[in-house]
């Protein structure tokens, strides 16, 4: 009994640690006062003001665009990498390649950002592209650092997949490219969706890398928030953050419900099969 008491205490403490800041942020987004730390009654006026703040809205739009494009590119490249690592069999330097694909996960963002900036500057001098820094460079940079995450997710999914499925398809006359699109891709689709969402969120909240490679007129939402904090937090930011939390939470909620339902359906089917068998 004592242990259960301790465990539930640990549980509550852990969750409080995680969620109290977010709850505070949401609560204060409905604060009537301009001062973030003083509660002056309930109001939704910051949400209304937010709708007329073009700087924030433009930045948000830009961030979503960059996140969507870079996540899509990252899924394509990351899938290729994950596929090569798990299906090429044993080749020389496989361990090295495996390590190298995951290294960006632990690389300090400052270094990633700086090195990409150097690359873009050098490329502009040599080949004239990318022309200056802006949306393109941010998108490319985000693709670079998020594709490692996708590769890891895809690789682990492929490792868990029965390799004889692909062999069976080949045995029945499908060429390797066909096998990939008809068998492999549908089976790893959940990993691709997960990888895409992961890349999307990573891109959406990145400040450091984006600061290095952005140019005039290409300020992402986290950059705007970050710089505006220097002049004191406007409750508008709270309102914006609350909306973002809402969007993300809804997405995760829907995804987990869909997955849980699929799992239940599968269990039921299996039960049925055993009874009929």
């Amino acid at each position, binding site marked *: 009994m004592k242990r259960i008491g301790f465990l539930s205490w640990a549980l509550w403490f852990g969750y409080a640690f995680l969620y109290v800041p977010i709850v505070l942020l949401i609560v204060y987004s409905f604060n009537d006062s301009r001062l973030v730390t003083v509660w002056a009654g309930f109001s939704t006026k910051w949400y209304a003001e937010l709708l007329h703040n073009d700087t924030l809205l433009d930045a948000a739009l830009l961030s979503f665009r960059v996140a969507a494009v870079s996540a899509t590119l990252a899924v394509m490249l990351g899938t290729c990498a994950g596929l090569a690592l798990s299906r090429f069999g044993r080749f020389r330097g496989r361990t090295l390649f495996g390590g190298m694909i995951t290294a960006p996960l632990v690389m300090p963002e400052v270094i990633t950002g700086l090195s990409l900036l150097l690359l873009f500057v050098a490329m502009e001098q040599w080949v004239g592209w990318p022309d200056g820094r802006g949306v393109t460079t941010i998108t490319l940079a985000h693709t670079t650092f998020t594709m490692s995450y996708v590769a890891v997710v895809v690789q682990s999914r492929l490792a868990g997949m029965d390799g*004889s499925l692909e*062999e*069976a398809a*080949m*045995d*029945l*006359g499908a*060429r390797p490219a066909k096998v990939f699109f008809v068998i492999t891709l549908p089976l790893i689709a959940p990993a691709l969706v997960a990888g895409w969402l992961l890349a999307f969120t990573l891109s959406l909240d990145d400040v450091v890398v984006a600061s290095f490679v952005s140019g005039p007129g290409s300020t992402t939402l986290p950059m705007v928030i970050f710089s505006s904090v220097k002049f004191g937090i406007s409750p508008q930011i709270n309102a914006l953050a609350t909306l973002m939390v809402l969007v993300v939470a809804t997405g995760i909620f829907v995804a987990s419900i869909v997955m849980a339902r699929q799992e239940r359906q*599968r269990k039921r089917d299996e039960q049925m099969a055993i009874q009929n*068998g």
Partner: protein
Amino acid sequence: MAGQPIRKPTRLEPWQDPGQAPYVRIEKVTKTFGDFVAVDEVSLSIYRNEFFALLGGSGSGKTTLLRMLAGFEQPTEGKIFIDGVDMAGIPPYERPVNMMFQSYALFPHMTVEQNVAFGLRQDGVAKAEIRDRVEEMLGLVQLAAFGKRRPHQLSGGQRQRVALARSLVKRPKLLLLDEPLGALDKKLRERTQFELVNIQEKLGITFIVVTHDQEEAMTMSSRIAVMNHGVIAQVGTPTEIYEYPHTRFVAEFIGSINMFDGRVVEANGDQVLVASEEAGCELLIAHATPAPAGSPVSVAIRPEKILLSKEPPAGETGVGEGRNRTTGIVREIAYLGDVSIYLVQLPTGKTVRVTAPNVTRRTEMPITWEDEVTLSWRPFAGVVLTQ
């Protein structure tokens, strides 16, 4: 215990007919993984319409050999010919071969119908024909009502039949089956063995079946190759393998057998006389592989070929005092219904296994525990093994 062969013998078996060209020819094929030799200089000829079994213990290289035939692995050395064509460098999707996988490998995101139709769709067969052939195939494996289900909605036996239908629907000349009945319970297994043989005879396809179940190999196949550590120990019909094993390994792998170590006393044509201290008598073997006098040999005798009696039997040729006859004490009796297994201990300490049909009821059994009995066998019963 060996089962009875299901198939009826045909006139002249193709492997006895020098005019027949083998459909599959495996020539000195070796496969190594790093330093490990999984398949070691295997040579085999398999003929049209054969039901050929690869039999061997776990890790003996059966799957590896099958995968080389299907094209998933390349031989490290040696050549494989199918229908006279060298298979080197020909990818799996261009071989006239289909394979049924040990794990079935059904595509989980497709229905049963789509699974079976997959191979035909790759060949660009017309829609209407695909529908007909899939329907026909599902009828053959008695799954016509399950076409719209997904693999996870099927029981193990049903999945196995889907996998079979999928590998048969393209009407391959050669079908490779890797432990096709591994996941089935005994009843379903026996029924499916008959179904497989029926399908094979009906469609006239060459089957190569991998199994580690010797009874399954005996009942289904026209010939068996026994594999051990990557090497083919013996190739032959079920009867040859059972009655005339070439090596100790084959003799002990198939069914149960009694081994008596001894020394050749006299060799007269194909009649060999062996003195064995273990057996406590001399062993006379007719139709033995010739062995020079004095050489050490083992004599193998199947349990059902030994006669168990309370009194020494009279009037058997080749059986007499101190020859093909010895005495012992019954230590164990296992009653199996149709037969009983007796473990008889000889004065030398050696335990001999004897099976005898229960011609009388159990309660009237004349021989019981601790009885002193006579064991005897005819000269045709034993096999001389030189290794």
